[in-house]
């Protein structure tokens, strides 16, 4: 009998891919371009490479505690009381960002397709589907991610291939003229909005993956594909639309889709291309919801949280509706709250966890980069978890 959901590594890779793209696929180039103008495309290239260091921290944590979520890791590293404090800090990430991202995407839908539909209706329908996903469990979610791949990759490739002939290299010149200060600021945006977001994967990986080793590879693949997509889209936005236009556009990738004109007849297809953003925002939000649900399970020591899902979903709908008063408030949230908050939770917290973990492990002379246990061991560990986990470092 299986006691725990088992996500296949391949499905998980897609999940990571979508969640890494998330809303950044739609709006990242604006915030980068407003700091760096024509140089903005460098940031995704450099930052994804540097961000690999952060993702490496996650894999180290996963190797140390192959059957835990981040909440349990916190307890095991810092001990119960301090661990709870850090777990609550981690929980604040999905709680703060779920309404914000919902609000952003609903505004997008309102802006382009349903201008006079009330916010709360779109949000309720959207969150309803998300709650349904959570209700089905993480395993069906991951399978759906795998199935959605066709609907994601075909429009995405279509967008890339039909707009790439429009590239004007002149828009990228002069190269590398931005000041170091602006570079750092843009880098912090990428670190906050994209890389640090990957930390939510620690509520799925490694606990819900049967094949830990393959799961780690899927995490890397998903992260790499996500960053590659972001790089390509940012590059295309700047080289096709010009840095001046991207810097003021709320949804530059959508404007890019409006440029599609294949052979004079295949045009005005941007409404079809939007499925790309729907898919990646959906899976990102599902993972945030999952984080919240897992946290409730952990803190309240519940065996099943299913009954709580509709209640939480309702709360989130209203939270999303009342989260921002206007778009200016939303922008300052992303600039002054979201970025520092995400970096704290997604980068600084893992650094702290790994540092403390290393000290503890040195003391106990445990290996610093252990191999994953094989499937049989994992199975045994899951079943004797209650007794063993407290003794684990």
């Amino acid at each position, binding site marked *: 009998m299986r006691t725990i959901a088992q996500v296949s590594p391949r499905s998980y890779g897609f999940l990571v891919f979508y969640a890494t793209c998330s809303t950044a696929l739609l709006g990242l180039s604006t915030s980068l371009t407003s700091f760096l103008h024509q140089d903005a495309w460098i940031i995704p290239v450099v930052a994804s490479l540097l961000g690999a260091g952060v993702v490496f921290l996650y894999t180290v944590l996963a190797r140390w505690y192959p059957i835990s979520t981040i909440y349990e890791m916190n307890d095991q590293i810092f001990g119960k009381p301090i661990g709870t404090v850090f777990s609550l800090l981690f929980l604040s990430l999905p709680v703060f960002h779920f309404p914000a991202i919902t609000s952003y995407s609903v505004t997008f839908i309102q*802006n*382009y397709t*349903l*201008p*006079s*539909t009330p916010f709360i*209706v779109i949000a309720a*329908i959207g969150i309803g589907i998300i709650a349904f996903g959570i209700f089905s469990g993480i395993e069906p979610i991951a399978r759906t991610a795998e199935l959605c791949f066709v609907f994601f990759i075909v429009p995405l490739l279509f967008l890339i291939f039909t707009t790439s002939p429009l590239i004007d290299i*002149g828009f990228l*010149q*002069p190269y590398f*003229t931005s000041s170091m200060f602006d570079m750092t600021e843009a880098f912090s945006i990428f670190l906050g909005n994209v890389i640090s977001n990957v930390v939510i994967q620690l509520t799925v990986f490694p606990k819900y993956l049967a094949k830990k080793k393959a799961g780690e590879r899927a995490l890397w693949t998903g992260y790499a594909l996500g960053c590659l997509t972001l790089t390509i889209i940012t590059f295309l936005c700047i080289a096709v*639309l*010009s*840095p*001046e*236009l991207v810097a*003021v556009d709320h949804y530059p990738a959508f*404007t890019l889709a*409006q440029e599609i004109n294949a052979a004079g007849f295949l045009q*005005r297809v941007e409404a079809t291309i939007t499925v790309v953003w729907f898919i990646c925002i959906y899976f990102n939000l599902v993972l945030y919801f999952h984080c919240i649900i897992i946290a409730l399970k952990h803190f309240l020591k519940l065996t099943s949280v299913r009954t709580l899902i509709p209640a939480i979903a309702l709360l989130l709908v209203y939270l999303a509706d009342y989260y921002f008063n206007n778009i200016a408030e939303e922008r300052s949230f992303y600039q002054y709250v979201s970025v520092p908050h995400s970096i704290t939770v997604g980068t600084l917290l893992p650094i702290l966890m790994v540092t403390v973990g290393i000290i503890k492990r040195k003391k106990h002379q445990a290996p610093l980069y252990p191999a994953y246990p094989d499937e049989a061991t994992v199975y045994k560990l899951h079943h004797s978890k209650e007794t063993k986990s407290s003794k684990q470092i």
Partner: protein
Amino acid sequence: MLMKRLSSGLLVILSVLLLSGCWDRWELNELSIITGMAIDKSDENYELTMQSINPAEIASQEIGNGYAQSFNTTEIAPTIHESLRKHVNKSPRRAFISHLQVLVISEEVAREGITNILDFFYRDHEVRSDFFVLVAKDDQRAKEIMGIVTPLENVPSQNMFDSLQYGARSYGGTRIVTLDDLYQDATAPGIEPSLMGVTVVGDLEEGQERSNAEKNTPSTTLLMEGLAIFRNNALVGWLNQDQSKGLNYITGDIRDSVGSFTCPNSQEDEFALESFKERTKYDVRIVNHKPIIDLTVDIGAHISEVNCKDLDLSKEENFYLIQEQAEQEFVATLQETVKEAKAHQADIVGFGQMIHRKHPTVWEQLEDNWAEEFPNVEVTYEVNINITDTGNIINSFSEDD
């Protein structure tokens, strides 16, 4: 079992609620499709003329009533969006502008600056950025341009759109400027926008009659000519057709064109070249802290018409003679264009942008008073015309081979 029935029943109700249709839908027969807009000044307000098409008259499968194919309304309001929504006061349908094709700005409005009227078009979600922006020339009211019944394409906005689009592919005297291009030119450092001019030739009264399109030689037509040039996003002057072509060559926005040149052996006669392969390159050198711009235009051409006497085109050296002559005259056209731009201190060519892209540090010093610096920039021209073909015949009939 009961639970299962109950939940499937709920699902049916939910489907009825969610799948019944779009919340804010506008059916096609509730929309008035605006294809052209014209902006004039009326005291302190903007006067917006909207041209919507009459689908029943345009559709080829239907036999119309013989009414006009388009329907113009004019509204006055302090903002463009308000005028647009006021359209419904005079029309039975709501204005829908996703299919906008041309926006004509009157010269008076353009002289005051175009940035505040363009804001709406960037901001509104319904607007797509693929329509062309034009300026009404010769103090013609933009509203009147929309009123002309044009032959072939009876809707003037469609007429202008096609004229611009195909003109850019066959003659090169027109310049296609979409909203995106305009935004780039208006906001990027070191470049100013330039917009195509449009005017009415012939009698204005007669042009508004349907009989105008019924004649073989219509008394009134629209004319796409001249290029409005801007400084600080306000209109300051006009380029003529040759200079517009010159600008298109410099910025590399030309695809196919024809030019006439004087014969190398006699001043009175001309020959024509059809260019088919144009490539423009630029380089910026810094000499004594001053930028010098080197423009290189490579053109591949055919000889498409020869009126020269005693010019034997079967001899290779005569080809070089013609090439050289054409190159010289071509450089003069380019010089004219740049001279005119410099005279208005309007950097429509984008020399500032070239300097910015190649030498960003030099640009930083020039940026602040670029309008004054721009006329002093030195430009060198190099034109390479490569004539490959002479059409179906080698020599003219005047020659005896």
